[in-house]
């Protein structure tokens, strides 16, 4: 399935679950999902044989302070069909909460812990949501754009 076909198929199959699906300038399919349908969409993407996204390649987040949102980004891959998909979920920056996809892909366990650690996104239902990189008693979220900690960041000339 080419990326164009994948895009149109997702458009027709999950009309009620997604906000938008676009083909990026780099020819990747980007799906922005409705927050309430996030888990359902992910489960469908994994189980439906047409999609077969067995492999959660990567889960991360991007901070957009200007739009007051943090986007949780899942990169999916299918070993059998060899196609790639990006699922995006926007969460509120002031009170970042997202459902966990750990029951669907176990691999999400540590990825979500990392996002929690570095962005402060709370994954509801996660079995073991602790800081993973930073010390347990660290209070800040380093990968947020407004993070400041003198002595941590050396900016180049």
């Amino acid at each position, binding site marked *: 399935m080419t990326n164009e076909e994948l895009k149109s198929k997702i458009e027709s199959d999950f009309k009620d679950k997604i906000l938008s699906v676009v083909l990026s*300038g780099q020819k990747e399919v980007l799906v922005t999902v409705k927050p309430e349908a996030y888990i359902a969409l992910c489960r469908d993407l994994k189980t439906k044989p047409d999609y077969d996204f067995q492999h959660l*390649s990567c889960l*991360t987040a991007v901070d957009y302070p200007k739009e007051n949102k943090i986007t949780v980004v899942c990169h999916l891959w299918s070993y059998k069909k060899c196609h790639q998909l990006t699922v995006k979920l926007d969460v509120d920056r002031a009170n970042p909460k997202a459902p966990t996809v750990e029951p669907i892909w*176990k691999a999400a366990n540590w990825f979500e812990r990392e996002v929690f650690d570095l962005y402060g996104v709370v994954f509801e239902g996660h079995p073991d949501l602790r800081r993973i*990189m930073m010390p347990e008693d660290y209070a800040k979220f380093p990968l947020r754009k407004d993070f400041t900690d003198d002595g941590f960041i050396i900016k180049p000339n």
Partner: protein
Amino acid sequence: MTDLLLSQIKPGGESPFGTDEYVVNMGPQHPATHGVLRLVVKLDGETVKETMPVLGYLHRSIEKICENRTYPQCITYTDRVDYVSAMSVNLAFALATERLMGLEAPPRAQWLRMIFVELQRLASHLLWMGAFAGDIGALTPFLYGLRERERILDLFEMTCGQRLTYNYIRIGGVMIDILPEFIPKCKAFLDYFEPRIVEYEELLTYNPIFLERTKGVGVISAEVGINSGVCGPSLRGSGVSCDVRKQQPYLFYDQVKFTECLQNDGDCWARYRVRMDELRESISIVRQCLERLEPGPIETKLPPILKAPPASEIYSRIESSRGEMGIYLVGDGTAKPYKAKYRCASFSNTFVLDQLTRGWKVADIMAVLGSLDMIVPEVDR
């Protein structure tokens, strides 16, 4: 998480002998954790009840650093993500940036990249083999592996001037062309190296002690492996075809002949065999690349300041020595990445350590850890 294995052995989860839990803190300075990884291990006698990896001792926040550097400057930091296989990470970042900006390197640069990445895979697997054998008590293969690795590093140093952190594969090409004497030296090395693999196999592969220690130990099934995000040679040991070089060919991997090495058992021995077979495959790939190398430019003309298109993003994957290496870049129209995420193979491979070691003995933690080929800087970044 429930401890499945123990509840199977002892109904009710209670030990019939009334023994206490024995918590051993392995690391962060333990001789076999390959760096500053800390494992909190709960034991019942010699049997492992739970292994909890504690990460972050080598966390340098490379992703944050990259947000404050220009794209070319980021490449110098990719060397430090996985310093055992720095070329692969160089390549991953360079490819991601090129795809983000719609650039393409000239053919000679692509072939050179393939040569160096495959040589790097050899070097990395050699170090892995030594460390793995060392973990289960055979100290000699480590020295043999390093001896051959030094020769590969000599080739690297001759070309780009560094032995460990190369900064060789650049956006739009490579740093510098190879010297004329590189090709004969490289061929001589490959000829020297191929019989050495037989020696390693004589030392390890069918050694009864090695078989005892690795066969059937730390078995991971294909389904669990895929679901837990295991990738690279570790997953191929479970019989899953997951080589990015085959699935999503980059560079000229679709133009060279090589087979994806697969084993079906999913145990430490299968993972070992996959990597030993990959040594041979890499040799054959380097040979083919050397044959097809033609003169030409080694870099594309780049704009004076490299800028990503606004609101652009790319998730680009390559097969590094340890498995799937993904780079997620978000561009915002400036010369610096808005977000750079390194998806490292070791990170997701270390995650399964707990599942693989439950119910096994203390010594098997080391065997499994070694067979997964994890590199702590790549886990922590």
